[in-house]
């Protein structure tokens, strides 16, 4: 079986301007939604209490909401969680009342109206922890970006490092844009997913860059544009298959992982789809516009005999 039977290199770079315009618009939209709607942050970031309760039959959300509101909580979110019998209640931080008192009070009130209710989980986060998490998350993002630029600059060329990071940060912003637009809950697990996507889709760009370097060495007569087209075309099959495999696992998490992994899998799905797009169309194009040349990558005198990175090693002429 062979899915991809591509006879000629596809001239991707001919459409680079159009494709980059598309990604710029998507990016701008994502930023727009992030700014206007903002992220629906989980309690881990905002501080507050989350309770998950299970009923024996289908829960009456309205009634639960009324019960909780009658306790004097202003900003209560009550929604189904996973199944129709599980209910998630989110309470804001209240001064002077500990989380333990809060959750017991709420559970007591719910038990009074339906004795069959059981507590599945409570989670309380103080506001100071949330601030640290935001700080930690941004630090992690910064270190990832810096680390990747440095590594790629060292292994390839700084232009590739910058191109890869821009392309993949664009993925991150787009994932966040989706979360802002649909107001999906942005939790710590989603943050982990987003950062993992960053690493994962840079990986994709690296595969293509690797090919570009190799093609520069192999095909002396091709110009930069052709080399990039060739590199993308020849990794096409691998790109699709790898991502389809990863997506299979992610979908498996989406369907079997339960509500806790739901948004995590969603973030990964968006990340993987846009990761392909950005690595193929954006990263290479940016590298092209930054002016990658054959001389940047092929430094003939530095190569030693038997260098494992040299595709010509062992090739007899």
């Amino acid at each position, binding site marked *: 079986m062979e899915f991809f039977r591509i006879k000629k290199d596809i001239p991707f770079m001919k459409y680079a301007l159009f494709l980059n315009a598309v990604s710029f618009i998507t990016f701008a939209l994502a930023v727009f939604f992030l700014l206007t709607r903002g992220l629906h942050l989980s309690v881990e970031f905002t501080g507050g209490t989350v309770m998950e309760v299970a009923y024996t039959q289908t829960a009456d959300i309205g009634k639960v909401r009324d019960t909780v509101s009658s306790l004097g909580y202003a900003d209560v979110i009550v929604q189904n969680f996973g199944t129709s019998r599980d209910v998630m209640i989110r309470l804001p931080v209240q001064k002077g009342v500990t989380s333990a008192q809060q959750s017991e009070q709420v559970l007591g009130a719910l038990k009074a109206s339906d004795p069959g209710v059981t507590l599945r989980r409570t989670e309380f*986060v*103080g506001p100071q922890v949330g601030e640290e998490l935001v700080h930690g998350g941004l630090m992690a993002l910064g270190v990832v970006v810096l680390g990747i630029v440095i590594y790629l600059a060292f292994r390839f060329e700084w232009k590739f490092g910058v191109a890869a990071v821009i392309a993949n940060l664009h993925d991150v912003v787009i994932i966040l844009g989706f979360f802002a637009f649909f107001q999906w809950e942005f939790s710590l697990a989603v943050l982990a997913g987003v950062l993992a996507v960053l690493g994962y889709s840079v990986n994709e760009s690296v595969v293509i860059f690797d090919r570009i370097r190799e093609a520069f060495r192999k095909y002396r007569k091709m110009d930069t544009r052709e080399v990039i087209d060739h590199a993308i075309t020849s990794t096409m099959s691998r790109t699709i298959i*790898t991502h389809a495999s990863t997506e299979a696992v992610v979908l498996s998490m989406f369907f079997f992982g339960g509500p806790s992994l739901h948004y995590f899998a969603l973030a990964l799905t968006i990340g993987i789809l846009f990761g392909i797009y950005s690595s193929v169309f954006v990263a290479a194009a940016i590298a092209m516009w930054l002016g990658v040349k054959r001389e940047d990558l092929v430094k003939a005198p530095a190569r030693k005999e038997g260098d494992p990175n040299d595709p010509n090693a062992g090739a007899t002429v």
Partner: protein
Amino acid sequence: MNRYPVWKYAILVIVLLVGVLYTLPNFFGEAPAVQVSSAKSTVKVDTATLQRVETALQAAGVTADQVVLEGSSVRARFDTPDNQLKAKDAIQRALVTDPNDPSYIVALNLVSRSPAWLTALHARPMYLGLDLRGGVHFMLQVDMAAALTKKAESLAGDLRTTLRDKNIRHGGITRDGDAVDIRVRDDATLTAVRNLIADQFADLQTTSSPDGDGFRLRATIKPEAVRRVQEQALKQNMVTLHNRINELGVAEPVIQQQGLDRIIVQLPGVQDTAKAKDILGRTATLEVRMVDEGSDARSAEMGSGPVPFGSEKYLDRNGQAIIVKKQVILTGDNLTDAQPGFDSQTQEPTVNLTLDAKGSRIFRDITRDNIGKRMAIVLFEKGKGEVVTAPVIRSEIGGGRVQISGRMTTAEANDTALLLRAGSLAAPMEIIEEYTIGPSLGEDNIQRGIHSVVWGFVAISVFMCVYYALFGVISSIALSVNVLLLLAILSMLQATLTLPGIAAMALALGVAIDSNVLINERIREELRAGVSPQAAIHAGYERAWATILDSNVTTLIAGLALLAFGSGPVRGFAVVHCIGILTSMFSAVFFSRGLVNLWYGRKKKLKSVSIGQVWKPEGAAARSVAGKNQ
């Protein structure tokens, strides 16, 4: 060219064997057990305890599958939860004679069913996180500013006493934040006070400034002393938490320091979360102070005047206001024991306190000097002070034995004693993060996690086998080896597996298969270019390696950043993610190459390889060869 030397195969076999060995314990599941551990530092759990447990079980007619002494606890394993409960009651009766002051903690627990020979090899199952087994998690923040204020307050008290002893006259000592201000009239006194502080108060440093017609000497706590105070406060709070949790009887509590001022408490398997929260949430500190009985204080007590300077207003249990001096005579630090009891004459419930040597001396002096006056015992819970009792001092109390009585019920006496006995905290703590996971949710999470991994694995394997034929089979085997090694390493490290960790494991499958896809695509490409099968395999692996290395390093950078800056669930994810990347490099490249070499390596005249259909466009091969010849 596609042959591995024997030593490489030897490495592969050894790694596989070790992997299997250390993964095994995870498959035996868990059995109900009763765990006996020491509740006091003076009580040792040893073979004698083991025998007592065994005799207790025999006497009760419950047979255990296994009774072992492990570390500092005895664990008895049972076949059914029913027997487990019976056994717990029997052991409790035999070992714990006084329920108010238990020497042993008898707790329900789950232990691995894995055979003893595996345990002897230190092959233990992974430790399941709270989200998978249920339990309570708390993160507590120690209020270090309060610890320092308290230290400054007690230093101010000490200074006062010392200056009085030395007959140095001063114009008043006040505490201002973490500093102590001493007002003196003239130069000579200033020098005297300064010398005294330099001599006897090593923790203080002084600066002086003119103040009116005299001087103001400001004593601040030295930075190194500040650090020490904070360290001690944290340590003492952890010890206190240990004691409180011991009262709860939890099998494997986790009490860890996090950062400079935080403590994490995890109580796995705790069902009665309300009780746990209640006990831990009571961040009580005890202080003994004198009641202000001046006329201003009287009127403030009645609510008709302001609280006099140097005093504070607290309520007692009945809501009655009591004006108490700010100066602290004794703190919970000086308390060694607290027991509930009954007054021999009135039969009223009491709490009997035992003080340490320093505490006893201070208490004796204070009671001697203040006969007829009132003393207040103030309990601070969550930043709010409450006067437990404010008795009139009838006589000098020596020997460090103090009885607190006064309008308490037996339950209240028990509670107060427990709180005091568990040790008061050096500094107040606040719960800043808390989560409770019910046991049923934990089991659901395990099921969900396993399903995600298994179905993801099946989907990938089926596709690989169909698309890449034999090479796909080899890739799938390599993928399962990856999972095996990942599990083995996590078990070896005794890492805590959480739901995000399982998610990372599933994701690791996706990342790991990438390497094999890269290799297989490369081999196909070489074949397409007309290279001989053996050379194609060789070149495929060699050329893919550089790419695999680069892409894995970048993924690893992201993983390490998550590990460094993440907390809680993100960390659990990052650990598995990073280890998964490392194992995937081993299994996808080294191990799968080994299998390929084993299968094809010896065939000298290999005509074709089973890697699925290799489609050749006309002319493409020619161009590729031409490119090489340039």
